[in-house]
């Protein structure tokens, strides 16, 4: 227990430093906010274009898809705030040997590497995404029930766990292939597919997104929960997937770390 407390103390200190550092760059906040709004607009226009030619996308109506886009943006915000500046730096640390400095610290290395930085300005993306999801939800004309809200919160947490596990998996590859520095771009590419409900894709792609690259669990499931399409059985499955994802990321980290021999060899 003391080790967990120690880790959280260390992290809190780091985040405070981060926060002070980031406060110096308020211009970046405006720029990143404008960027987010612009890309949200493009995403909504894209969906609107599809809906010019169809009334439903994989059984989802326009505002349902916008709810999903909002959730997508919130998750992307989590990625930008925590994952990219944290575990996204792992390949560089492995290559340069900077990971040594992490491993000798008396804190859990995976925890530390994952949550060492907090790009606070990007939290605005999370807020903006959730706000859009909320607005679009209101436009669907549905009333929110306790079941929808609870399953949404749970499945959104599952989504974060799945995204985190995907990042750990991709970044851990750095322990085997040192030359791979643009793994993050691979995530960006694959995550693009999560902009739409998986049911909008043809069978082969759907299979890929549910089982092989599990991005179906990241946006489709929370959006289903909010718009009342999530069957209770699937909610339980989502919970299992989330726990399995966290477990797998832990296991992979242990296996990968055994391969680490520092930069000096």
């Amino acid at each position: 227990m003391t080790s967990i407390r120690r880790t959280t103390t260390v992290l809190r200190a780091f985040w405070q430093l981060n926060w002070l550092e980031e406060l110096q760059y308020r211009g970046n906040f405006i720029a990143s906010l404008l960027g987010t709004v612009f890309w949200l607009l493009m995403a909504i226009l894209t969906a609107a274009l599809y809906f010019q030619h169809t009334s439903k996308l994989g059984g989802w109506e326009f505002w349902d898809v916008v709810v999903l886009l909002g959730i997508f943006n919130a998750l992307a915000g989590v990625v930008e705030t925590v994952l990219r500046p944290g575990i996204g730096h792992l390949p560089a640390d492995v290559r340069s040997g900077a990971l040594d400095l992490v491993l000798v610290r008396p804190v859990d290395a995976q925890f530390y590497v994952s949550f060492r930085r907090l790009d606070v300005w990007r939290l605005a993306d999370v807020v903006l995404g959730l706000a859009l999801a909320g607005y679009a939800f209101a436009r669907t004309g549905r009333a929110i029930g306790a079941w929808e809200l609870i399953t949404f919160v749970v499945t959104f947490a599952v989504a974060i766990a799945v995204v985190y596990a995907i990042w750990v998996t991709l970044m851990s590859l750095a322990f085997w292939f040192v030359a791979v520095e643009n793994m993050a771009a691979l995530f960006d590419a694959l995550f693009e597919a999560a902009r739409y409900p998986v049911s909008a894709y043809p069978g082969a792609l759907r299979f890929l997104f549910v089982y092989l690259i599990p991005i179906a669990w990241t946006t489709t499931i929370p959006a289903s929960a909010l718009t009342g399409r999530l069957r209770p059985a699937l909610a339980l499955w989502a919970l299992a997937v989330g726990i399995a994802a966290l477990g797998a990321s832990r296991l992979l980290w242990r296996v990968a770390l055994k391969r680490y021999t520092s930069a000096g060899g």
Partner: protein
Amino acid sequence: MRSAFLIDLQYRASIAIWLIWGITEPVISLGIWWSIAATGAVGGFTREAFAQYFFGVALVNQATLSWDAWNIDRWIREGEMNYRLTRPIAPIHEAIADNVAYKGPTAAIVLTAWIVAAAFWPAVRIPFEPARWALAIVAIVLAAAIRFLNGYATGLLAFWTTRATALVELQFGISLFLSGRIAPLSLLPPPVAHAAEYLWFPYVLSFPVQVLTGTVTTAAEYTRGFAGQVIWLGIWLMLYLLVWSRGRRHYGAVGG
């Protein structure tokens, strides 16, 4: 150019990732349109037509990618521009060599993937017409030149501002629609599609793709397309020359 190619060779894994990155976008668009067209043609596009169109988008996009703005941004920010300015030839020559060395092989990979896919999937087979394919190659080369100069000239704005790459991203966002990236131009609302014709966007992607997949048929359409490409190539060449000469002086003026 040879050295640029050899440098690329060292980063095969990275290049594979950039390739996947370039291909997912057209694959996602195709997936969505494929589902929408399940019940019949959409605006004249059948499922097969969508498949051919987006395979074309993937290929043309790979052959015309533009990333130089990010390089220039780094060159200027980290002072790498300085030694490049002391060389007897302008850095754009190095950038052109980089571009040819990268796009040639990677576009060939996409093309190979297309041929393999066509062997199993008749939907993506395009008719064998050597004359039109030759025209398509010309259109793709012109498109690559326009997009390169466009990205390079915009990137050079980094002499004045630290947010030149944001301008490139802004153009990219607009090109999603106006270049025909997420949908063939004819599926856009007519006023938008019409407005696009007065900009360079359709000529860097939509036009070459249409030539390649055989949806450009009349001589008038060919003439208009190629004329548009040549005009925009000229405009971006002039803009590049202007920004380069002004920017260099501005750079020197602030002491480098």
